[in-house]
């Protein structure tokens, strides 16, 4: 039975799509997302198959694209910054996929996905893919399909950006998923400073202060953040001030900081950790606390996963856990 999966997607089969991504066919991205976002049982089977076909085991290596998490409170200028970043990456011939996640309304279940309107894009450019998704009822700021989407799009795109709204603990999910996490703040935001100092928020890989065109307030915020990082013993974390209004400033510096962070990273280790957390989060979301208890708790579940082949994809790992919990 074919489920109508929306505009433009012939009910795609996983193997074809996996092949297209492996061949670097960026136009496959929309159909890939339609498949991954599917809610039905058949959709899950296809989604699992797609992920397995693009697992490190299948590829013989980690997906080469850089997965960058961009997160911060509403209104700090994330999408304007993203517009500039995407433009700069494209000018450098790097292909970019943006997964923009917005919160859903608790009341109606619906969502307004407004980032796209603020990102400048040439309609003819297949090298910049933007997909807006609603977080649904998941906590943690990610949509159900975001992890899977980021991991498979990193096969074909040079950069995969996961953009989420939030500050405090909600960015831990992004941190689990991304190779590099940038937290975006605007001048004068004391809450981030407090969260950092008190340890509510983990130290991000890169901190970005927007609205540098305001001058002094931005510089002061940058200085405050640097001082806080020093007091926490983290001298290396770069704090970059950017301005997205013309003439934009700090964009090249930010790209360099993101690249530098990734260059120092043990990608295989970070991705492995990410896949294990993704598998656990999916099973937890599906089976709840009872399911988690059946696995002997978080720690035991992670121990189970560390016994699995490190090159397996998150969907396969999740299946292992699910079977164990239900069995």
């Amino acid at each position, binding site marked *: 039975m074919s489920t109508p*999966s929306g505009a433009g997607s012939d009910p795609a089969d996983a193997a074809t799509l996996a092949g297209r991504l492996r061949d670097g066919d960026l136009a496959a991205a929309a159909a890939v997302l339609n498949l991954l976002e599917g809610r039905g049982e058949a959709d899950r089977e296809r989604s699992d198959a797609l992920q397995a076909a693009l697992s490190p085991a299948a590829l013989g290596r980690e997906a080469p694209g850089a997965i960058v998490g961009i997160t911060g409170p509403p209104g700090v200028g994330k999408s304007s910054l993203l517009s500039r970043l995407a433009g700069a990456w494209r000018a450098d011939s790097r292909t970019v996929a943006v997964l923009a996640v917005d919160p859903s309304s608790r009341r109606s279940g619906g969502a307004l996905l*407004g980032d796209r309107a603020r990102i400048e894009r040439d309609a003819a450019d297949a090298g910049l893919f933007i997909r807006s998704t609603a977080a649904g009822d998941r906590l943690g700021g990610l949509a159900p399909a975001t992890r899977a989407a980021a991991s498979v799009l990193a096969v074909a795109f040079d950069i995969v950006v996961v953009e989420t709204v939030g500050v405090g603990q909600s960015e831990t999910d992004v941190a689990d998923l991304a190779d590099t996490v940038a937290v975006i703040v605007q001048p004068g935001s004391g809450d981030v400073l407090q969260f950092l100092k008190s340890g509510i928020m983990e130290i991000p890989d890169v901190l970005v202060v927007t609205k540098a065109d305001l001058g002094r307030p931005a510089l002061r915020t940058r200085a405050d953040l640097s001082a806080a990082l020093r007091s926490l013993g983290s001298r290396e974390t770069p704090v970059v001030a950017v301005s997205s209004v013309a003439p934009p400033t700090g964009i090249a510096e930010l790209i360099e900081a993101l690249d530098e962070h990734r260059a120092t990273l043990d990608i295989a280790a970070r991705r492995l950790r990410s896949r294990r957390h993704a598998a656990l989060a999916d099973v937890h979301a599906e089976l709840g606390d009872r399911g988690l208890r059946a696995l002997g708790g978080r720690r035991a579940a992670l121990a189970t996963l560390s016994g699995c082949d490190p090159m397996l994809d998150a969907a396969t790992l999740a299946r292992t856990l699910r079977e164990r919990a239900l069995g």
Partner: protein
Amino acid sequence: MSDRESPRLPERDRPWVMRTYAGHSDAARSNELYRRNLAKGQTGLSVAFDLPTQTGYDPDHELARGEVGKVGVSIAHRGDMKTLLDGIPLDEMNTSMTINATAAWLLSLYIVAADEHGVAPEALQGTTQNDILKEYLSRGTYAFPPGPSMRLIADMIAYTVVHVPRWNPINICSYHLQEAGATPVQEIAYAMSNAIAVLDAVRERVPAELMGQVFGRISFFVNAGVRFIEEHAKLRAMSELWDELGRDRYGVEDPRQRRFRYGVQVNSLGLTEAQPENNVYRIALEALAVTLGRSARARALQLPAWNEALGLPRPWDQQWSLRLQQILAYETDLLEYPDIFEGSHVMESLVAELADGARAEMERVAELGGAVLAVDYMKSALVESHRERWRRIESGDLTVVGMNRFDSTEPSPLTADADGGIMVVDPAVESEQRAALERWRSERDETAVREALGALAAAAADPEINIMEPSIAAARAGVTTGEWSQTLRDVFGEYRAPTGVGEASAVPSGDLSELRDEVERVSDQLGRRLKFLVGKPGLDGHSNGAEQIAVRARDAGMDVVYEGIRLTPAQIASSAAQEGVHVIGLSILSGSHAELIPSVLAALRQEGIGETPVVVGGIIPDADAAMLREQGVAAVYTPKDWDLNQMMRSIVTLVAERYGIDAAAAV
């Protein structure tokens, strides 16, 4: 005989300047229309420019497609401007130009054209609208980011106060805020905050001793709705606040320079498509709001036509509205008395209430760093007010006669004509204008043009140089509207304004639960939550309707990708494909649907998603709606479809049909 003082003025007042917002097609046709209007007793000009001119694109630009000459006249260079003003006595005429992002350019063209007609800048009288903040908030014809835009405005004020001293370089518009849903308090507060942002920027560019003169040249363009008593009080409150602001913030000592001067276009928001003849009464009452009390009477008035909710008005429709002004001014005794509200306790306390509310809201904007930085805040406040207004109409709390109450009607003879009672712009205008532009470019001195553009770019990059001189030089050299704007875009960058939809609060669930259940059911069968793309193709920036649709669709439980304004058909198609949406909603109010919608359908086919249903909303005459449906549009919604929940139900049903999902048992 009694020795009581006469209640009358010793001499009847002179009437306000009477205008009609007019212009269409090309300069020659509009010039002919202006001359006819002046012959009918109109006393000032109000130039409507088409959207490419307003947003700085030449008629041959991709984004201009379908829009050339539609909602106003196309002016691409000084030759067009000269033709537009031919035979009109510019030293006596008072010309209002609805132009904002490109105001500095159109004023330059006006100065050069006047010069060619032998009239010096010192003699020119009129107004450039030139209010960019309300473009971000409501009208959408911005071109540059806020910082550079404010600088252009400040440059124009600093220039005109010395060189074109009888010109009003800016008309702070509260008009469009009301159209976007502003309450009277918001309308006053945001307009005043906007004025403060402008004056603060100018203060840095003119010598202190000129500030009184600058203050005296700032005028306002306000709106008046059908609640005409409160609307009148609003204008008195604005006078009071303006006087206060001049005295306290800018140290203006001469009370004449602190006088609140304003022009008016009365409300279009409240005009209905249903029983459109009733709009004549609404317009008359709204005209009273701005003329009744002498101490807050409009300096200039333009009235909409009865059929604006149906399409573009014809010359006869506009004449009907001009006659209303003339009856008010010349037949009634309105102009024979001093201020008739003086001493009215009711009016006084109404004014005090509005002024207090506005002061509080102005403080809030100031706390956010002033109007420029508070654009996001103001925008979401307006979307929220508009949503609330619409909720009241839908629930019946707010009566709109002929629409949500007393809606049975006899067939109207006024709309029975073959053209449906609206004006249709000749589609050949666009290609004529393109050809004319090509001729213009081939006949001018290219070296002079390149030099002028080079000087313009250098001036744009250096905030110390006033943009007006190089702009006037460029106008003389034969530069086009698109070239002037592109040169500035290259220096200033592009800008996308906030949409304000993200923050709008949800409607009470009770009204929507059945609809939400249906959205859930259809979403489950689709395999993903029903995803809806809402956007505006073309240059029309009136996004209020599209924003309300987006918010309501979210409240109905859909995932809504809100794309905003000014999109090419290719952009819409590519977004729809990338986002994997199930249905696309397009809104157009500029009358360019006949060109743009088929282009979007073609672009969707090219993306391989031609089967995705497209619904269209806007001011679309019946005949056009039929044509669009024939071309493959799934549904056309007009102002008749004011019940948004009903519209959402219709969209969900349509999606279900398209994707082969069983109809709900009862929707």
